[in-house]
């Protein structure tokens, strides 16, 4: 079970795609839901929102950036290897209906999370304008899939290597100026979501974001993933991960994500130096 059947490196090897055998999950999963994975018995439980599912093949797809020891251990799993643990689908699915005109904004691996949501919104009859951003064009992922899932697509790069030279927020502003937009879905790094949210709030356009706090069990049992939404504490794992952007406290989320920064650095450094016990793997970067 949880065998990797397909693996791709994206964005110069910094982002990894795994297609994983998970028949029960693939039948059930809806856009916006996540899974929790663990590389082996000593590993951490890592939540990742699914980028795609294939119920016929009985597989799900996850896409993640290598940012620490746990994701480095995921990266070092090959086709044919199995995850020690994989559970899901978890969290509330995206509420998909035909609202009219929708803008989907994605950055980094958030684009992977955005993918099934964008597709579902378009399939529901919405006109979907998608805006994707990355630091440079060679770090952009899933351009073709996102083009297919959208009515029209804008690319932004910080360095101007492709499309609009600048941030997604600038294009979002333009689109909102010139169109009557009913819904915005913004998924990416916290600053991106925060600034998209500020823009749409000014225009009073309902906006959804997908929050990615640290989790342990992912089923509501521990409260590690608590986020403040509209002044109330919510558990992202069972109440989310999607929330009304205008009510979210992004600064608190950013701080809580840094809870274990020192430990994470120690762990990753040891792993890179090949000191990690049991696996004995060396970092390839």
């Amino acid at each position, binding site marked *: 079970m949880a065998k990797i059947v397909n693996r791709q490196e994206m964005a110069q090897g910094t982002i990894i795609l795994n297609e994983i055998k998970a028949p029960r999950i693939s039948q059930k999963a809806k856009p916006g839901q996540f899974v929790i994975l663990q590389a082996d018995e000593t590993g951490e439980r890592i939540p990742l929102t699914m980028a795609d599912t294939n119920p016929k093949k009985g597989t799900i797809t996850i896409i993640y950036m290598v940012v620490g020891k746990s994701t480095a251990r995921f990266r070092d799993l090959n086709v044919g290897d199995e995850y020690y*643990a994989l559970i899901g689908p978890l969290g509330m699915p995206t509420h998909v209906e035909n609202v009219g005109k929708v803008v989907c904004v994605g950055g980094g691996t958030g684009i992977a999370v955005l993918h099934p949501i964008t597709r579902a919104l378009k399939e529901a009859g919405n006109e979907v304008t998608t805006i994707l951003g990355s630091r440079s064009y060679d770090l952009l992922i899933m351009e073709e899939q996102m083009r297919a899932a959208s009515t029209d697509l804008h690319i932004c790069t910080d360095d101007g290597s492709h499309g609009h030279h600048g941030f997604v927020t600038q294009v979002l502003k333009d689109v909102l100026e010139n169109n009557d937009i009913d819904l915005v879905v913004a998924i990416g790094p916290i600053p991106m979501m925060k600034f998209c949210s500020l823009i749409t709030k000014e225009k009073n356009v309902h906006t959804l974001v997908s929050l990615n706090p640290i989790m342990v069990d992912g089923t509501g049992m521990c409260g590690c993933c608590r986020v403040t939404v509209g002044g109330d504490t919510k558990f992202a794992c069972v109440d989310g991960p999607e929330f009304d952007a205008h009510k979210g406290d992004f600064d608190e989320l950013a701080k809580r994500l840094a809870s274990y920064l020192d430990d994470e650095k120690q762990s990753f450094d040891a792993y890179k130096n090949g000191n990690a016990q049991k696996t004995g793997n060396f970092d390839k970067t």
Partner: protein
Amino acid sequence: MADKKKKVPRAKMPEQDPNVRRRNFKEVPLGLEAETAIAEAKRCLQCKKPLCVDGCPVSIDIPAFVSRIADNDFSGAIGKLWERNALPAVCGRVCPQEEQCEGRCIVGKKGEPVAIGYLERFAADYERNNGTGGVPEVAKPTGKKVAVIGSGPSGLTVAGDLLLKGHGVTIFEAFHKAGGVLVYGIPEFRLPKAIVANEVAALEKMGAKIECNNVVGASVTIEELFEEGFDAAYIGVGAGLPRFMNLPGENAIGIYSANEYLTRTNLMKGYLFPEYDTPIARGKNVVVLGAGNVAMDSARTAMRLGADSVKIVYRRSRDEMPAREEELHHALEEQIEFVLLTNPTQFFSDENGRLTGMECLKMELGEPDDSGRRRPIPIEGSEYKINCDMVVVSVGSNANPLLTNSTPDVSLNRWGNIDADPVTGKTTKKGVWAGGDIVTGAATVILAMGAGRAAANSMHDYLALGW
């Protein structure tokens, strides 16, 4: 003869020295030696109408197993325990015997009761360390299949009982290891995880299938399990959602629910970081809010993770603390401080969101409330600050709706707990039983096991005779 027995004092459980054990995760009580166990077993009067058995939620034939220990027949003793209890090594450690079997013991009327818990533990440990590796004998297969959802104490009891009666059992567990609260909640120093694994392995030898990483309600519904060929289901998924205090500043870094703190430490083995990848904060000045067994587990864990000071902050007085007396005693021995008649009002943090302290109010006790305990009343103007870099909130939990949302025909009470028959454990959905904390709200391991036992009997009747 009884007179002679009275002269032998109750066996003392040897324990790790408090000053040593407060910094390690090894088990605190060391267990009885065989000679001590035999001497203790001989203190039993072998009552004709044993009240101890009435005090046991799973009705273990206590005089029978104790007499076998007295006769040096340790495998006979474990056999007697297994007839009624699939988890003797666990129960011998975590049951509140003083309120149950030992609380009713006739020897205890004029002196100290027979140490039934120590003896149960002895028999189970002896079997594990020196036994044949045998397991209870199961009946001829009935061809019926039962889904047990949740592998905590009630689920394991249901599984053990139904296996004995010849039914096929599959246990579904959301986590990657079986045992529920026995592995994620109760700390290593109180219940070594190898012992839980051993008890689970015994069920597998008896024929149980264990499917970990399956979140029933999310990965599969109960209805789908029936479609897949299960004949009955038992829901024992535990209480679930941790309660917080709902005070300003409660999302500061360094404030954990007891569930998270203990799960990171026990199940994910955060205390072995970086050998294990899951980190756990090591607070220097730790406050635990609440005074139940889980609060004591959290406080003693914090001490073992290197805290300079650990305080239990509780709004009532020493008399109302709900933890077992033994747990309170162990905590005090390990230099945990009790700050009583005190309640937090808000939490403070620095510019990075890290906890720096909390404001508290002093309380006094008024008239008894609905629970029969004297109600704590704030003393106006008594605010003061406690400096701390970690708070563990251990004030109970609410019912987790993850599974019950997916089974609308299992009806719930107004708190979201499953509405199950108190005698049989039957829910409002045909073929589905429930027990343990998801029915009662947070309670004890043995009460959950008692509910499992009752449900297993009812399920067996159903599988043989129908609903």
